[in-house]
């Protein structure tokens, strides 16, 4: 079982960037007024940020990372680890991490690589950063996590289009003997790989003329094979089945209860799903911050975006004990228990 702890790595800072352009689901004319109200009330998404065509995930990541490095006062030559996590990379080839390493002016001695994960991206990313820094003794590392999901959602697909928003984030880590350990419980189940999928464009189903054909998949659901498909009920049942046991197992391993944490930051899947998980874990509303109403489901960026925009005061002026949990596409899920003790948190960047 992948339950483990990594010492000596300090959570040093976090920053987020979103596109300037904001759209409201109340203006989503593909569905009825009543459906639009339901999107806001039940799914929980009112507004979303949408990247202009041509803006890539790396642009948002670089904006967030630049500001974060400045506010941290870091020497760029000391940043020797960069991990980029996304499902909307700049190119099929090459990896995006190298492009970001260059644009940020990081040294050639920097280890840079991509990881392809979505909803669980940040929690998996923290584990990769902490493990590698602890093993390699690299002093400073940047975790860049985000997605531009709106480009691959079909306007005529009411099950995906009104759900997603774009955002990207940067999280900074430093090697520090006095840091509290970070604790993880990570899990995977690839039998559900097609619950959230873009079927064409990879090597299994290489792009072809047929990839562009729109098909009806249900009432109000038309998309082609280069656009994202989401089996809402399957994902919902997966999350209700797996998320709370994962969190409870980590709490049990740490001999802690939910009262030992200040905030529970969840992937912003949809309001109904998150509220159901909150109730199953018996968590007070005040302990569970949300960004879904303002920014939608921001895929891999959802947890760091929520920390940056909702918990800025607690993490920059004090110490907050955070319990975070990401779950979704893969299927992949996991929890991270991490302390944010007077960390650097620039204001949200609008790109």
């Amino acid at each position: 079982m992948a339950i483990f702890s990594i010492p000596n790595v300090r959570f040093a800072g976090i920053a987020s960037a979103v596109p300037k352009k904001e759209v409201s689901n109340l203006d989503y004319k593909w569905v009825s007024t009543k459906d639009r109200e339901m999107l806001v009330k039940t799914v929980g998404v009112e507004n979303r940020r949408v990247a202009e065509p041509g803006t890539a995930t790396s642009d948002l990541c670089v904006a967030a990372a630049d500001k974060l490095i400045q506010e941290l006062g870091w020497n760029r030559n000391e940043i020797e680890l960069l991990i980029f996590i996304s499902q909307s990379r700049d190119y099929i080839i090459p990896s995006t991490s190298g492009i970001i390493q260059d644009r940020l002016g990081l040294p050639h001695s920097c280890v840079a690589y991509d990881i392809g994960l979505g909803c669980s991206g940040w929690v998996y990313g923290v584990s990769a950063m902490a493990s590698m820094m602890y093993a390699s003794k690299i002093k400073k590392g940047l975790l860049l996590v985000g997605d531009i999901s709106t480009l691959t959602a079909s306007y005529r697909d009411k099950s995906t289009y009104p759900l997603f928003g774009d955002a990207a984030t940067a999280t900074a880590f430093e090697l520090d003997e006095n840091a509290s350990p970070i604790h993880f419980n990570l899990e995977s189940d690839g039998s559900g790989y097609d619950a959230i999928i873009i079927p064409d464009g990879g090597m299994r189903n290489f792009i072809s003329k047929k990839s562009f054909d729109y098909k009806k998949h249900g009432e109000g659901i038309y998309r082609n094979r280069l656009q994202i498909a989401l089996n809402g009920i399957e994902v919902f049942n997966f999350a209700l089945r797996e998320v709370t046991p994962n969190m409870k197992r980590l709490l049990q391993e740490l001999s802690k209860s939910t009262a030992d944490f200040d905030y529970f930051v969840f992937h912003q899947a949809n309001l109904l799903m998150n509220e159901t998980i909150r109730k199953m874990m018996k968590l007070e509303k005040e302990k569970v911050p949300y960004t879904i109403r303002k920014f939608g489901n921001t895929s891999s960026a959802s947890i760091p975006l929520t920390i940056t925009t909702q918990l800025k005061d607690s993490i920059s002026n004090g110490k907050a004990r955070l319990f975070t949990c990401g779950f979704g596409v893969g299927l992949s899920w996991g929890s991270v228990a991490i302390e944010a003790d007077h960390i650097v948190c620039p204001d949200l960047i609008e790109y």
Partner: protein
Amino acid sequence: MTIEDFIKNIETEFDDLEPGKLKPETHFREVFDWNSINALILIAMVKTEYGAAINAEDIQKSKSINDLFEIVKSKV
């Protein structure tokens, strides 16, 4: 668990539903403007109130509130 409580729990979740309108024999697709979001609301209610997991197939094969109630009861 009783069918009366089950109906009450559904009424709590769907607030545009007139109290007393749902009966055990009511075909729920005729009362609701049925869509996948409503299915999720139902799944979430069953999970939080009864700790049971119902899936899309369970909902599809149920016609009346009572059909659904029996499925939930068998899973508790």
